[in-house]
């Protein structure tokens, strides 16, 4: 389709979905908008990062019905009626998610640009499997690129958050071997 005509055929569409626990109604300005575009341009949530815009790095990961999804690869309208969670939704009610705590304490980041996507993937992992092994953690975040190479910090942070429930008793020391 010619670049001049793209706008004419695309009509804004109204849509409702749950975002970070709240039901919202919003307008998708163009058919080609991805979920990331909707979050960024319409809902002004800037926490979800876009590093490649082509499904290759995991930075833009959000949860759609509790499943990690690359928001740069999902058309916005497919979120209709779904439950979407972004990094902004992790710390609702004023307290940080254990993963956020441990990424701070264990320094699971350098520049932090890959962090929001990794937090979302790790949340799903820990929800399903509160005490994952090293290999399970690595497999879970294998699709999230971190160019700073903060991988050992990422691994330790997720392991520490996973064991935080029993931290008192076990005095878990995660920083041993990769």
């Amino acid at each position, binding site marked *: 389709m010619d670049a001049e005509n793209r706008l004419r055929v695309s009509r804004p569409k109204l849509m409702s979905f749950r975002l970070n626990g709240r039901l919202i109604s919003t307008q998708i300005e163009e058919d080609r908008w991805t979920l990331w575009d909707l979050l960024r341009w319409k809902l002004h949530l800037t926490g979800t990062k876009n590093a490649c815009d082509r499904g290759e790095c995991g930075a833009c990961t959000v949860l759609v019905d509790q499943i990690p999804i690359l928001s740069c690869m999902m058309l916005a309208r497919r979120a209709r009626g779904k439950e979407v969670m972004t990094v902004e939704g992790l710390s609702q009610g004023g307290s940080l998610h254990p993963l956020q705590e441990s990424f701070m304490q264990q320094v699971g980041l350098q*520049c932090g*640009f890959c962090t929001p996507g990794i937090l979302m993937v790790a949340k799903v992992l820990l929800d399903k499997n509160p005490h994952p092994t090293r290999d399970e953690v690595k497999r879970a975040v294998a699709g999230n690129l971190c*160019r700073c190479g903060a991988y050992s910090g990422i691994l330790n942070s997720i392991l520490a958050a996973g064991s935080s429930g029993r931290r008192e008793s076990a005095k878990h020391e995660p920083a041993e071997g990769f």
Partner: protein
Amino acid sequence: MASPLTVVRPAEESMTKFTAIGRNLPKVDGLHLVTGQAKFTADYEFDDLLFCKILRSPLPHANIVNIDASRVRKHARVKGILTNRDPGSSAIWEPPDVRLLDNKVRCVGDEVAAVAATDPFSAADALELFRVEYQDLPRVFTPEQALSLGAPEVRAGGNLVGGKPLTGGRGDVIRGFEEAEVIVEGNYSFHGPNNTVAAAAMEPKAALAKWEGDELTVWLSTSTIFKVREQLARFFGLELSKVRIISNYVGGSFGSKGEDAGRYLPITAQLAKTTGAPVLTVLTREEESMRTRHPTSTYVKIGAKRDGTLTAIYCRELLNKGPYEGKIGLMIAAKIARPVCQLYRCPNVSYEAYSVYTNSCFIGVAFRGFGTPQPTLAVSSALDELAKKLGIPTPDLMRKVHAKAGDPMSEPGFDHGPILNGEAYDECIDAGASRMGATSLGRGQGMSLFIHGCTEPVIHASAKIVVDPKGTIGLHAGITDQGAGQKTTQAQIAAEVLGLPLESIEVFAGDSNLPTAVASVSSQVTWVQGRVTYAAAVDAKNRLLEAAGKLLGVRGSDLQLDGRGWIRARAAQGGKMTIRDVAEGTSTPIVGSASIMLGGEKGTPFSAVAKENGACFTEVYVDRDTGGIEIEKIVFAQHVGRAINPRIVQQQIEGGVMQALGHTLTEQLVMESSTGRCLNPNLRDYRILTILDVPEIEVVMVEKPDPAGAFGVIGTSEGQMSPVAPAIVNAIQDAIGVRLFSIPITPAKIFDVLGNSK
């Protein structure tokens, strides 16, 4: 990886005297980063914000005969257009011959035109509406071709950057080779001549420009805010004070976001000027892949006595520059001096480097390691070969030939040869060798030393510590933090001096309206900026005690800070008060400040410098049937002076090792030589390493305080880029008996050499 923190510390040293230094404190900006509140450049919003996209050349070398923008102009959402026909594009950006938008394109991806539209999609659409007529020109892609007689001219003034090779050395290499009893030589290629590696920071480069009258503010993903300010002020003919650069959060840089980051920045500012609205440009991943490390070919020849004493080193390097950034290209080429003149003790050395303009789509710019990895690959590989010829284990030869404290550190820019403050090569070699142990069956081991930066040749650094009337302490300095933890480590230095917990220091950084700080390049923030932060904190502390003394009616020198926010008399009796009481009670604000100027015409000359130094050891397994290679273990031992925050230092080193490992094994941007375009400008076919690729990495931080660094610190963030590749090349040689002369090392390459050697 993720081995327990290994810090090797001089026996007499006790860390108990420190409260903030040497501790794994959480980063000061961690909360904002884990909650998504941290504002990167692309996160700023304005109601009238316009989005810029850049039309780029499909051809490697061509004249632009005509640009028809009439259809673009009709697009309802396009608010601004910039082509080479517009007056705003005609000023020279890169002397002598490159205008902001030129009449000529010199590589695929070169800037041709730009639009600003009310949304990013419309801006991208509008690019399709341009009609550009090109007249093809002969193109040249390799330095060899570009230097040959009658080669097409890429830039006015010739293809050799600077008009002559960059040369240097000492002694008499011809005599040195005559004296030699053993000679080794070889030609090594770092992704040359045409392919290369990318910084590939996760945050794409971005700029948001906004004018108010004749004042320009730019939010920018950068590591050099003061240099960029100067650059833009010069380009737009403004006073420095009229330009402000803000860079609060940067999603990785690795050197790629400096003043050589590209013309997208002035284009954004120019469009903001013509449209009168704020304009944001965010580069695509494809655009992000255009500015890279220089691919090189390096010839090296080394002569030695039978006992391993070096008699001569000669090194010649050809760097493929692409068509732009010649000035920084020369600075990068100059780093050939590091492995040749600085890293090893040899009386006769000589080097020549040729930085060459070509029509390659890869424009060589600053990148972590800054020109040192390429010659280090050659020199360290050749020395390993020398050791084999001499029958001396490589670590033993290294112990004999490495530089020592007090040796001259000459290189272009530091021609007078400041001496090396200190090094810990022996400690690093010992730490590495003992941790590697004997080679396991069927494996091979290799190693390489390294040396790197810690300061630019000209430095202006300043910092302020402000005690506000509420008693909170602000550290003010225009540093940027692109993930290396600069904000946190500077705050730890201030906290230590003031005897306060880290949380009580608020860091104001990333803004050119703050005191001028060093650029976050050359791994110099801790070593150089740390000194002024330290001095400013001492100044603030003295002023605080002075003011408290006045209030308490005693001498300031009779008071001390107790580490918990109280000021107390040294003697048992005498008053006490909180910092807050003092701040509230005094009439004048308490501000500590410090600044230094080193090098250049105005600054104090460098007499001594710190350098990143250390050793990388690796063990590899090579599958002789498939050519597959496994990295079994890496021990990276680095002299860190003093680890201000050991976990942050360890992460810097691990991260550097991972990037260098990618460059050595899996990463390569490929230029198609028939068209001059990049075939894989993305993150899928350009394979950076994932968490599944992390081998066993043991980091050893050797503490041996540097006399000039605050608390003994030296920089640590770049050295890793140089020794990993040669350590692996040497390990493969050890494993299969064949030396590889080029990276990346792919299974196919190993398969080939194994086939040939049978």
